[in-house]
């Protein structure tokens, strides 16, 4: 029998990580919250084995990732059909123009601002590119593993990641350079 207070403290320790993993993949707070909820319910069923395990963080991350990818593949066809025009708008959005102009009195962005800018730029990427980039950089998956997970070719994975990096370079490089990077 699981002690509820122990599970609450376990959740407090890992909820941000699980929610962030899901959010960066699905790009929606509401969906990420649903996925985080399912992940913790699954964790509750295995809590007796998990609480003593040193790899519990990795287990939660993998479950959240797989659930996010399942969610994306389930809704991909529907999403593509219904949000065609929205994607076009999304791709055309000039993120740099939406950000406030650099302050001449404060040339370098402080770390907090910089992170906010990077996180926001990441969320403006088209979903295909964002997912491939997140799996590569945050989840440390290889091109082959990403291709297998997303059921697409390695060529497409490489193209998506390359395009995502180029988009982020256009949007972020001047700001990071101003901050001394």
């Amino acid at each position, binding site marked *: 029998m699981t002690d*509820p207070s122990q599970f609450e403290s376990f959740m407090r320790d890992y909820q*941000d990580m*699980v*929610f962030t993993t899901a959010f960066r993949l699905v790009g929606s707070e509401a969906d990420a919250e649903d996925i985080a909820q399912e992940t913790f319910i699954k964790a*509750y069923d295995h809590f007796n084995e998990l609480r003593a395990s040193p790899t519990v963080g990795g287990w939660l991350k993998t479950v959240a990732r797989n659930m996010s990818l399942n969610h994306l593949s389930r809704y991909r066809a529907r999403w593509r059909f*219904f949000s065609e025009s929205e994607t076009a708008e999304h791709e055309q959005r000039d993120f740099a123009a939406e950000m406030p102009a650099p302050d001449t009195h404060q040339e370098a962005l402080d770390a907090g601002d910089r*992170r906010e800018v990077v996180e926001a730029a990441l969320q403006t990427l088209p979903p295909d590119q964002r997912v491939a980039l997140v799996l590569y950089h945050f989840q440390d998956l290889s091109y082959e593993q990403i291709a297998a997970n997303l059921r697409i070719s390695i060529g497409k994975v490489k193209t998506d990641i390359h395009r995502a*990096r180029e988009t982020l370079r256009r949007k972020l490089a001047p700001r990071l350079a101003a901050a001394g990077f």
Partner: protein
Amino acid sequence: MEQMKSKDENARWEAILDRELKSLPDRPAPASLMPRVLAVLEKRARMPWYRRPWWSWPIAARASSMAFFAALLAGITWLGIEVAENGSPGVVTTLVGDCVGIAQQIWVLIGLLVDALALVLRQAGGGLLFGGIMLCVLMYLSFVGFGTVFYRVAIRRQQ
């Protein structure tokens, strides 16, 4: 030369980006997440045992269910062997006979409905059939069209 320079630049940007992305802190989970999870777990705990996943059933219930399914499997196997060795035994013949009787009645009913429909179409001519198909197509298209518009409006509002 240009190509090498561009390759170096790409590798440098990849390293910078990787460092930047990995240094991003986790986003705080919504305050509603924990109460939601705890509510689901509480609701699940209040469920009667037979509506919970099988592995969380009481041991006695798990043992009885296993015994029941083992007996069922044994029964099916025995019936299979019986049919293979001696032809269809009495019980099976009766059961199959009943099923065939019901299926025959359903088949006759379907035949009657199809005949009636064909008669109506012959009387009304091809125009009615064409009109009906067009109406279905129109309804389908308007369903997809309205669905798309409502979905896009809803998504835009959410953002």
